[in-house]
């Protein structure tokens, strides 16, 4: 069934390609020097050959392969174009049509009568300079009348003309509709919807049974029509992916490789135009990955990889774009070889080659005609491919990004804008205007009423922050960002928590309305420079509303300081896989003018009047939220010998840390700032209570050893969760950055070194690059679940001993999985249970290493 589908598509597409070839070849004869035209012909022929290859039509493949060889010589300027040559290629086109007709009728290519043609093509390709002998008069280069010298059947020629006249039935069964027409239909339907809304409004104002019935019917039909028209434009990417398993399988067999294809997100909907545009590039990329990327099993085994290679296709919406990734775990791209090839081809001078950055070198693969394959195979190696991929993707406004690690694999990422995709969005108001926030960037909504609004929005050196479940969230005001009028101070504050490029911030708006499915439309070029908007949409009442670009808003307001380009480039990957990018709270205490702790550890910032501080059990405490909060004077811990200041500060500045249900307040002299930095602690200090120092915001800051400080002052602090964590590295594998952050903050707190991974690949990469003691993975880790990570780890000897804690979404699931392959399974958001379990695993590790150096604290 599916094969029939594939073949029908193949027939339709091939007929189109052949018609184009006819036209282009005749055109080429008129303008033999037109390199672009020649390149286009070459690509078309390449596509035909490629598709024939997938479907194992060997006759067609043989013919088109030879024709392609000829064209490739023409393209590279190795031979002149003669009318005879054109005739020969046109004959190929006709023969191809004939075979297609046979495939349509019987599903078979039919008897191979075309030995003669193949032979002549081959001869022509071989004798580069010799004139091509074609037994037709040179004066008639028209596409018709191929000679009847193959197989000696005089009827053949006539029949072929008849065939040409009788167009393909399959091609007729489908109507190709211009996208322009669909666009127009869509616009008209939009208009109809608005009119319908008005009529419904009208209907409610009158009591007319006939009008009522009619308008209900109108309502129904309009909705159906709208859905129908939308459907004509939107298609799941699975449409294109469907044929890939077969492609990969056949390629793998013919290349003697073992490849497992995994597809993730095949339901991701894309606009029809985009589907069309990415179809060929995707096939090219998959072929490339199979042919160049993946190694043969023997080599893989020698490299310590499983013999079966993995090829992952992934598609997802992100920040107003569709991302499509093609990931293989093959040999990766050898940059040195790329440079060498470019020098050999003469497109790069030797001295330039040395100066190229890795990224620039990687871009060499996008040059036309570039290939590092040692020989030309029928699969690939001619150098069509990456340049076509790039030009096709850029035509629809997308970006191609290739990243690769020698020996570990290659990732090709296509970022495609969804100019017409339908996305869910949240409608908010600000300054009297409506704006739409794409749902993908939205984490949660927060409403602060009455007293709590002032308590919860605080200022760190003039910067507003909100305390959100144990971490500080920087805040921006939409009114200010867009220069709109602020309303009167109302009863409540509405805030949306947004995420862009792995970072979160709160955006305060005047009001939050509802979520709607919206159609994204691009803005005119007059507004290109406005980074705050991703596009516009038409709302139910017929008015236009702007769609906010969350990243742009974050940057305009300064809550996301990094420039867009930088963030889009490699640094993002680093920051999130390595977890080095940290937000730091900077403060002052005693003679230490710049101290830092990770912001993720801070629960709240508070001010208490001196008068509220009381003595209890020999230490200072304060009543806080109906509880007793012990206070740790940081100055006294760091400098026990220094005298108390004569004039204690009033009010007292306190940083509150939480652990489970216990809290501790650390008294500091002044809160300075929040900074985001790529921090490595450079200089170790021996001083008690400090980890070391590092440069933060161009100035040196001392890092507080929170564990030591709090332990020294608050005694039994941290005992509850166990403290075997110090020094252990834990890999947290979880898709949602938000959940990951939650898990991380819990582990950070107890002193574990935490690595993060958002998917199976990232997790495996992290395991390869860093020593890991314990793995914490979500059951639903993409692409196929946490169990895959467990399998992956059990394959490698050095990873077999690493204990694994799985996190499930619910208690039922956690119980059900308790005895699976993992050491333990807990509920994802039960922090205490998770910490306890991790502590248990750490303790078990410790006792197996050196009996009882670290005693498990639990129970």
């Amino acid at each position, binding site marked *: 069934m599916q094969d029939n589908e594939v073949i029908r598509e193949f027939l339709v597409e091939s007929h189109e390609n052949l018609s184009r070839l006819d036209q282009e070849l005749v055109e080429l004869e008129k303008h033999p020097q037109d390199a672009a035209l020649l390149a286009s012909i070459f690509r078309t022929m390449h596509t035909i050959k490629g598709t024939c290859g997938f479907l194992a039509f060997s006759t067609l493949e043989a013919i088109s392969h030879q024709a392609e060889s000829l064209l490739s010589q023409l393209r590279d300027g190795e031979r002149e174009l003669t009318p005879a040559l054109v005739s020969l290629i046109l004959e190929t086109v006709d023969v191809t049509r004939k075979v297609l007709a046979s495939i349509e009728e019987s599903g078979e290519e039919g008897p191979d009568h075309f030995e003669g043609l193949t032979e002549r093509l081959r001869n022509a390709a071989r004798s580069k300079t010799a004139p091509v002998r074609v037994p037709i008069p040179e004066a008639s280069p028209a596409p018709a009348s191929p000679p009847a010298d193959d197989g000696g059947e005089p009827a053949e020629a006539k029949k072929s003309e008849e065939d040409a006249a009788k167009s393909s039935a399959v091609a007729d069964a489908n109507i190709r509709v211009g996208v322009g027409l669909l666009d127009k239909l869509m616009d008209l339907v939009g208009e109809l919807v608005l009119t319908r809304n008005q009529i419904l409004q009208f209907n409610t104002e009158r009591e007319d049974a006939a009008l009522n019935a009619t308008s209900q019917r109108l309502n129904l039909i309009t909705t159906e029509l709208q859905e129908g028209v939308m459907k004509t434009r939107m298609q799941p990417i699975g449409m294109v992916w469907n044929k890939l398993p077969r492609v990969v399988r056949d390629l793998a067999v013919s290349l003697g490789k073992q490849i497992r294809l995994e597809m993730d997100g095949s339901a991701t909907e894309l606009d029809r135009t985009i589907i069309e545009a990415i179809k060929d590039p995707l096939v090219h990329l998959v072929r490339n990955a199979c042919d160049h990327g993946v190694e043969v099993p023997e080599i893989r085994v020698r490299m310590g990889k499983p013999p079966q290679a993995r090829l992952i296709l992934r598609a997802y919406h992100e920040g107003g774009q569709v991302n499509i990734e093609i990931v293989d775990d093959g040999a990766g791209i050898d940059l040195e070889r790329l440079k060498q090839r470019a020098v050999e081809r003469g497109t790069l001078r030797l001295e330039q080659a040395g100066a190229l950055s890795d990224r620039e070198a990687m871009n060499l693969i996008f040059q036309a005609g570039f290939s590092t394959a040692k020989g030309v195979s029928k699969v690939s190696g001619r150098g069509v491919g990456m340049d076509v991929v790039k030009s096709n993707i850029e035509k629809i406004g997308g970006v191609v990004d290739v990243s690769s690690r020698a020996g570990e694999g290659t990732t090709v990422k296509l970022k495609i804008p969804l100019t017409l995709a339908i996305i869910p969005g949240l409608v908010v108001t600000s300054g009297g205007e409506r704006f739409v926030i794409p749902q993908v960037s939205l984490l949660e909504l927060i409403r602060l009423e009455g007293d709590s609004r002032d308590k919860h929005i605080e200022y760190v050196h003039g910067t507003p922050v909100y305390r959100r479940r144990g971490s500080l969230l920087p805040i921006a005001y939409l009114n200010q960002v867009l220069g709109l009028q602020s309303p009167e101070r109302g009863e409540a504050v509405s805030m949306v928590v947004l995420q862009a490029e792995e970072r979160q911030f709160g955006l305060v708006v005047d009001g939050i309305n509802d979520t709607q499915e919206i159609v994204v439309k691009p*803005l*005119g*070029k007059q507004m290109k420079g406005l980074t705050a908007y991703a596009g516009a949409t038409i709302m139910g009442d017929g008015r236009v509303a*702007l769609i906010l670009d969350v990243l742009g808003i974050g940057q305009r307001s300064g809550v996301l300081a990094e420039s867009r380009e930088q963030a889009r480039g490699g640094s993002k990957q680093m920051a999130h896989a390595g977890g080095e990018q940290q937000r730091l709270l900077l403060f002052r205490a005693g003679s230490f003018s710049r101290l830092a702790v990770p912001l993720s550890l801070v629960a709240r910032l508070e001010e208490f009047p001196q008068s509220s501080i009381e003595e209890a059990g020999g230490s200072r405490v304060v009543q806080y939220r109906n509880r007793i909060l012990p206070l740790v004077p940081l100055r006294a811990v760091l400098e026990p010998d220094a005298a108390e200041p004569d004039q204690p500060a009033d009010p007292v500045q306190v940083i509150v840390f939480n652990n489970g249900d216990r809290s501790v307040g650390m008294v500091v002299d002044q809160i300075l700032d929040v900074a985001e930095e790529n921090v490595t602690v450079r200089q170790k200090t021996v001083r008690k209570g400090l980890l070391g120092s590092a440069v933060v915001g161009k100035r040196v800051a001392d890092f507080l050893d929170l564990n030591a400080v709090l332990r020294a002052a608050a005694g039994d602090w941290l005992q509850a969760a166990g403290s075997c964590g110090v020094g252990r590295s834990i890999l947290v594998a979880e898709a949602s950055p938000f959940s990951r952050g939650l898990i991380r903050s819990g582990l950070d707190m107890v002193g574990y070194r935490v690595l993060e991974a958002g998917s199976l690949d990232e997790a495996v990469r992290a395991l390869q690059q860093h020593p890991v003691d314990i793995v914490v993975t979500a059951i639903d880790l993409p692409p196929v679940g946490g169990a895959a990570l467990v399998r992956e780890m059990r394959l490698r000897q050095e990873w077999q001993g690493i204990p694994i804690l799985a996190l499930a979404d619910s208690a039922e699931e956690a119980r059900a999985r308790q005895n699976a392959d993992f050491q333990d399974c807990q509920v994802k958001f039960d922090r205490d249970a998770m910490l306890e379990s991790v502590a248990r695993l750490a303790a078990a590790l410790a006792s197996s290493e050196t009996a009882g150096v670290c005693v498990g604290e639990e129970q």
Partner: protein
Amino acid sequence: MAATAPAKSDRSQTSGQFSTFFVADLFFGVDVLCVQEVLRFQQMTRVPQAPEVIEGLINLRGQIVTAVDMRRRLCLPPRAGGQAPMNMVVRTEDGAVSLLVDEIGDVLDVEAAAYERPPENLDRAAKDLIRGVYKLKDRLLLVLDAERTVDLTAGWPA
């Protein structure tokens, strides 16, 4: 553009039918073939932070169209209070754009012989946007270059 082209070819290119409109006391014309439609004042969505010549976005049967205020585009004083502008929707390379004008005039046939290049001492704000002048019987018709008008990087004093 107009400055370098020979006068002769200018003539042959710019004669024909023009849709006319008024902005303040100026009488403009654009090639009738590039006018999509003319509309009364439409409800508009402001675009905060956009260049100030952009009045807003309008929904034209499902198509989102940018409205450019011609008064501001030509550095003229704002319309008198209460006077609602008209939309002259023109087709450009970048899709339809609405020009907000004071009043819509007739479609006029003009003769090539009446054409002249704009005066050299024309105000900077207008110079880039006005391609030429037709000397009509009782007034001057200024030929507006629609493409340059909607290209906000052109002719805008820094």
